[in-house]
């Protein structure tokens, strides 16, 4: 990489640490920034630092937030008896999209994934159990991904939480809207049948 001047090489190196950015994309972004007006680059740099400095984890639910507790945890219109458990802060946004869920959240920051070295110790489980112990939550909805990792996490959570007397439910898995039954494999079809509802 020595063909670039040192500051440019350093920028490319830093950009390559970002997810989904390889050598080529890093070069493209670096050249773009080189050509851009100084003010634009400054705004970007400030936004990066500003987000880093101001965003923290909510001390209640572990969501990313500027104010602690976060907007969901401090909103009195949200039902404290309903708790939705998700893997990542992005998944909070995904659930919110449905405009259906009016309870609160708990973000695990991952799912059980032994290949990535993530076991129960690496998830935000202790704070979840502490929250459930005070008896306010009546139902915990597990909204982890429909993957091996998400499923293992859901089953693990259910076993952990049921003894506390909390109802545990799992979001439905099955045929995606807009697809075709023809393309559903055995796992998907089995889950779709298990998750059927009376009409």
């Amino acid at each position: 990489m020595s063909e670039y001047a040192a500051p440019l090489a350093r920028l490319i190196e830093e950009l390559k640490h970002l997810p989904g950015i390889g050598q080529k994309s890093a070069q493209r972004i670096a050249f773009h920034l080189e050509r851009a007006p100084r003010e634009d680059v400054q705004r970007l740099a400030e936004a990066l630092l500003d987000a880093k400095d101001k965003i923290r984890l909510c001390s209640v639910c572990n969501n990313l937030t500027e104010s602690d507790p976060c907007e969901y945890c401090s909103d009195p219109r949200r039902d404290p008896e309903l708790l939705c458990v998700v893997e990542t802060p992005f998944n909070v946004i995904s659930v919110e999209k449905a405009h259906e869920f009016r309870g609160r959240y708990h973000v695990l920051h991952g799912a059980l994934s032994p290949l990535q070295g993530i076991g129960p110790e690496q998830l935000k489980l202790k704070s979840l159990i502490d929250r459930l112990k005070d008896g306010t939550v009546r139902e915990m909805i597990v909204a982890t991904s429909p993957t091996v990792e998400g499923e293992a996490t859901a089953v693990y959570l259910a076993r952990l939480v049921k003894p506390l007397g909390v109802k545990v439910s799992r979001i439905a898995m099955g045929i995606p809207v807009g697809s075709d039954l023809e393309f559903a494999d055995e796992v998907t079809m089995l889950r779709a049948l298990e998750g059927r509802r009376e009409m």
Partner: protein
Amino acid sequence: MPLIETEAIVLRTHRLGEADKIASLLTRQLGRLRAVAKGALSRRGRYGASLEPLSYIKVWIYDRENRDLQRVGSAEILESFFEMQGDYRVQLAAQYLAEVSERFLPDREVNERVFRLLLVVLRALKRSGEINRPLLFFDYWLLRLGGFLPDLSRCMGCQKSFAGQDGFYDPVAVALVCENCRTGASTERVSASALGLVELFRRTRIEQWIEKESSPPCTQELRRLLEQIIEAHLEKKLTTRALLADAI
């Protein structure tokens, strides 16, 4: 660019960009390789559960020889190991198998026996939900087929048979020695009953062994010894092994 149909076991996948996945596959016809599945994370989900860890699949691969990354045309499930991994202990065991296979087997080297071994062990895990014996069986045969299994019946130093005596593991030589030959390095004792276990399953199929009797007491001890030997040959720590030690 030929399109090749092969059976495969999915060792692991990870996200690539917005909607694609990279799958590490142990294929029957082409050996271990990595391939991109375009749109695997998109809304239409055309790969369904086929690219979940440890799925046994039929897959069509655009094989670009001399390239590091191939492309998945399509895939369908032959046998799923999704449900069993809902149990974290089984998930852990299954992903240990995946990690060892991925690290142990060279790129693009066809190995029919290891492919069958992995499949048989996954099925044993699925049917029994037991961890120790399927993993022990896998470790033993993987080491043996690869020519890395040290002699578990006699001392590497004096060649005397252990014959009911405990052995000692020497991590430098990656071998077992007797009480007399042990050095300062070989501090780890391996019980005679653990060493004797090998005779129990050496000529048996895993499913028969599990069906016929319950798990003998030293299974875990021998399993952990073989895990150490595998790690010694890889010259690198296994991510799943530490979690396995905590949970099982």
